[in-house]
Each structure stands twice: as C-alpha cells, then as structure tokens.
C-alpha cells in the first residue's frame, strides 16, 4: 500500500527522535483507536475494499431475504429453468440476472448461499486456528527453553509443507464433510498464528510492565492472558484477516477438486466445479460468476488486510 497516503506525524527522514519529541508535547491526544480508524480510512482503495467486503458479508447473511429463490429447496427449483443465460426470465416469473445452472438454480441465489458457506467455513476455521495458535505461541514465548524449542520445531515442520498439501492429505484421510474440512483448514493454519503470537509475545515479555506484574506476585496465567496477550492482538488481527482469505481460497480449491464440501453443502468452490463441464459448450456463466464472486471476496479481504498491516505495524510507519 502507498505509504505516502498515511500522513503520520513524522520528522526528518522519519526520525523517531522528532516523532518522540512531538509525541511528548501532547500532539497525540486522540485515542489510539480513533487514530487507527482515521489512518485506515486514508487509503481510498482500502475504504472501497472494506465497503465491498461489508456488502458481501451482509448479502451472505441476509441471503434468505434478498434472493428470489432458495436454491436448495427442491420445491422452488424448476429443472425447466436449467442452463438459462444471464437475464433470462425464470418459470416463477423473476429475472435470473446471472443465469442458472444445470439443475435450474438461479445463480445469483446460489452464489449468495455459497458465500454463506464459504465465509462460515473460512471464519470458523480461522477462529479455531487463532485460539489454538495463540495459546501455543504464547506458551512458547512465556515458558521458553525446551518447551519453546519443541513447539517451534513443530511449527517449522508444519510451515515447511504447503498448506494446500496438508489440507489435501487430511481430507483424503478424513473424507468429505463440513466438519472435516474445517479440521483440515485449522491444521493447515494454526502454525502461522503460533509463530505470529510468539514473535510479538517475546517482545512484550521483555517489557517492564511484565516485570512489574511479576513483582506484584500475579500468577503466570494472569500475566500471560491479561497482560501480554492484549498487546499481541494487533499483528494477530492482520495475519488473521489474510489467513481467512487463504482459508476461503483453500476450501474452494479442495471443493473444486471434489475432496472438499459435498454437493449438499455447495460452497463457491462446488459451484465453480459444477459449471466447469459446461464451459466448453459456451455456458460460461455457471462457472465464471461464482468465480468472480470468490475473487472479489478474497481480493477485498486481502486489501483490507494489507491496509491493517500498514496501519498497525509500527515499523512500516514513516
């Protein structure tokens, strides 16, 4: 992201001394949260991405109320509507703006329902992976020594395999199903979070407020979770955002390959796979529109994540 867009208070050549001097004078009177928000919104691209993402999430959540059809209610799907091009009139007298698929489902409706599943899988696996990675990384940084060495070697090992390969092997072993794919995504992702949290926890651990907490006789658990953890959240949010996009893409990949979600729980990946056979017969829309929806979702999450990283990372500030 363009760094000149963030007009932080800096001095000559980003000299920290001047910045500190200005900070001392009370220049930074706004709360960190307000500053964070205004810095985030300084990039038009990031703001557009955030709005797009909000619209996508909202549309996915509200899908049952805004789609003309529930694509998985067999009573509402008419096989006579199959493979209609975009803009066709459906039998039930509504316009299929994005056309329909082989089974006669309205693609617009199918995409929104698919987004629900894709987002749910991505976010759920992300949250579980964060919980596991965070605890493990925090423990490694706090305890140190052999425990840290052991945990971090496992993390290194995990990270040396491509995430797609790990997930592919796991679903091949476990079989299909939404719970299994979430498990596979968690296994493929936790190590990123563990490494992120350990890195920032090591920095926080050496700060004097942690020593102060120790000399006040507070318990280790309290120091780890109440004192250190809240200060490690910023990088975790950044990694979490970008990893969620990865998870959604990974799930789509697995589903496209036919080892992910079953036909009964059609995510965007399943929709793309379903339309693939019609591609060569010129019925591009069945694959392309779900693909575009996936693309927009992932790109907007990544753009938001990039801006978060720029704003939250003190080293990139100049």
């Amino acid at each position, binding site marked *: 992201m363009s760094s000149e867009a963030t007009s932080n208070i800096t*001095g000559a050549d980003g000299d920290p*001394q001047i910045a500190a*001097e200005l900070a001392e*004078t009370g220049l930074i009177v706004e709360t960190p949260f307000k500053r964070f928000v205004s810095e985030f919104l300084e990039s038009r691209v990031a703001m557009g991405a955030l709005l797009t993402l909000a619209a996508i999430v909202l549309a996915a959540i509200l899908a049952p109320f805004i789609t003309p059809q529930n694509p998985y209610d067999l009573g509402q799907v008419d096989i006579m509507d199959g493979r209609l091009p975009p803009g066709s009139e459906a039998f039930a007298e509504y316009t299929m703006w994005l056309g329909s698929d082989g089974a006669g489902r309205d693609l617009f409706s199918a995409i929104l329902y698919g987004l629900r599943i894709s987002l749910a899988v991505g976010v759920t696996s992300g949250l579980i992976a964060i919980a596991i990675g965070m605890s493990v990384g925090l423990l490694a940084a706090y305890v140190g020594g052999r425990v840290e060495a052991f945990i971090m070697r496992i993390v290194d090992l995990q990270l040396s395999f491509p995430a797609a390969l790990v997930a592919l092997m796991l679903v091949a072993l476990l079989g299909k199903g939404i719970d299994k794919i979430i498990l596979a995504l968690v296994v493929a992702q936790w190590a990123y979070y563990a490494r992120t949290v350990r890195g920032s926890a090591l920095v926080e651990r050496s700060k004097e407020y942690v020593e102060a907490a120790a000399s006040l006789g507070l318990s280790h658990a309290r120091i780890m979770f109440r004192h250190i953890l809240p200060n490690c959240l910023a990088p975790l949010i950044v990694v979490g955002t970008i990893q969620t996009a990865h998870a959604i893409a990974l799930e789509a990949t697995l589903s496209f390959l036919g080892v992910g979600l079953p036909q009964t729980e059609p995510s965007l990946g399943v929709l793309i796979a379903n339309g693939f056979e019609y591609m060569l017969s010129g019925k591009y829309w069945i694959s392309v529109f779900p693909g575009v929806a996936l693309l927009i979702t992932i790109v907007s999450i990544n753009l938001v994540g990039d801006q978060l990283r720029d704003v939250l990372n003190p080293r990139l500030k100049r």
Partner: protein
Amino acid sequence: MTAVDGTMEKLEGQLNGEDAPTLVVENLKTHFFTRIGAVKAVDDVSFSVQAGEILGLAGESGSGKSITGFSILGLIDPPGRVVSGAIRFKGEDLVTASPERLRGLRGNRIAMIFQDPMMTLNPVLRVDTQMIEAIQAHRKMDRKAARQRAYDALEMVGIPSPGERLNAYPHQLSGGMRQRVAIAIAFLNEPDLIIADEPTTALDVTIQAQILHEAQALCKRTGTAMIWITHDLAVVAGLADRIAVMYAGRIVETGETDDVIDRPLHPYSVGLLGSVPSANKRGERLNQIPGMTPNLIGLPPGCAFKARCPRASELCNTTPDVSELIPGRKIRCHHPHLEEAAQ
C-alpha cells in the same frame, strides 16, 4: 560538489570577514500541520554562532530544540514546514536554498551528530568504506588519500588503533566507539558548522566525559562552529561558550555560559537551575517547578511558561518580546530576575 566549490566557499567566508558569524538564525518558525491542528514546534527563534564557538541549545522534550537543528539542515518533512524566518549560513540563506544545494552542504560544510550513531552509520558497510565515501562525495580525492584522511580523523577523536577500527563493521564497536566514529565522520570534511543532537545522552559517564573533552578540543582546533543540543544543563555548563535555553518552541534566554548558569534571568532558567540536586541542601526537598511541560497544541497566547511561573502577572498574557536588558544577554520575559543578576 567539487573541490573548486569548496575553495570558493572558503574564499567567500574570508570575504565576509572573520568576525561574521558562521550561522545566523532569524525569527525562524517551523510548524507542523497535523490533523489535530498546527503545532508551533519552533516559534520565532533567533540566534547566531561564531566560528570556533560552541552554543549549547538546552531545553526539555517538546521545547523544539531538535526541530531547530533539523530546520537548519533542511530536513523537515511534511507535515512540517519552515513557515518563515531566515537561516543564514555564511551569508547564504538556507531556507530558500535548493534541495541540491542543501545536499551539497550537508555532510560537507554542515555536519550532524545524532544521539544514535547508527543514524549516521550504515550497519552493512565497513567503517573505512563509509568514511571514504563521505569524503569522495564532496571532493576529488583518490581512495588511498581518502583512507589516510579517515585514519587521521579517527586518531583525532581519540580512537585507539584506528587501522583496526577502519576495517571493522559498526556492530563490532562499542556504543562509545560508534559515537566517536560518527563524530570523526562529522569532522571529515572540516565543516564550518556541526549540529550535535544529544550525542552523549546514551553514553556512560566516563565515556561521555571523554567525548565532551574531544569535541571541545576539536572545535577550538579546527575553528568549527558547533551547536550542542541537550536537555542536560550540566553538560553544556562544562562545554559551551554560550547557552540558549528553549521552552515550548521559543528561546527564553541567551547569554554567556557563566552568566546564564550563575545569574539566570528568566524564571524558567531560574527554576530549572534551582531544581537540580546540587543546588539544594542534601536530603531536603528540592525547589521544584510546578506543573507539566506544556502541550504545544492549543497553547494559550502570551508567555508559554506563565502557568508554571511564580512571577506571572496579567502582562504575561501578551507574548514578551526578546529584549537585551543587559549587554550580551537576551531574554524573552516581562518579569526577569534582574535584581539577582545585578548582585
């Protein structure tokens, strides 16, 4: 920049006469325009430095002392800007000078020493590479001669076995050594002016003493003018010829070191000097200045020190002008401590 230019400048300096100050700053205002409002980091500051003279620029955090230094070097980045005033370096105005001209002067005629020597030193290059580059950037000199010059510069700042240090990387040197190398680099091209921004603050007492000693001797020997920026009056008391005390973006008092330290006129200088432990009786409460260092945003009009000043009156709601009530001593105050100074 070529050697010819360097000679021209020397000539110019001579034409202007030996007594003309190396640097004259007049009514300098550097403001920072932030979302929250304009910050008058430097607000109407005037001073001058002669060749071979050390001026101590003392102030607390937020007093604008570092920004003043950066303004002279033309290193103020947006949202900051020199709003008005003149910075005359040997007769040439630096405020209106082109960026190319400033780059030619920096590291050549005007050098800077930072609190953190790693601001000057490149961690991945050997000391000799950096020093030779610093020389060759501003004058034509072959590598061998430049290396010899670097060797001499290291020897000059009291570095033992300079040959070895030249081949070292910055991380192989101690903090004190690094600062010496940074000082040696500052003196490499025999500048007319050095701006030193708290160069000994991060160092230990015995190492600080060595560096103060070297810096003082070098200035006298080379005739370089020096501005020594610090928060520690005790450091400049032993080093500087003259002292300027800054508070909230303004110079409140200037004068000979002995005068300012022994007979301060401005209530802020009086309070500051009175609060140091050695001025008080052992074990007794110190004479503290009440209140906090002011917030430069939304500073009320008038004297910035009035809220903490025991002498403040209605009059202090108007900004005092700089006056020279005693020859050689400029102050910005409506109620200076003239009676004490007279004794």
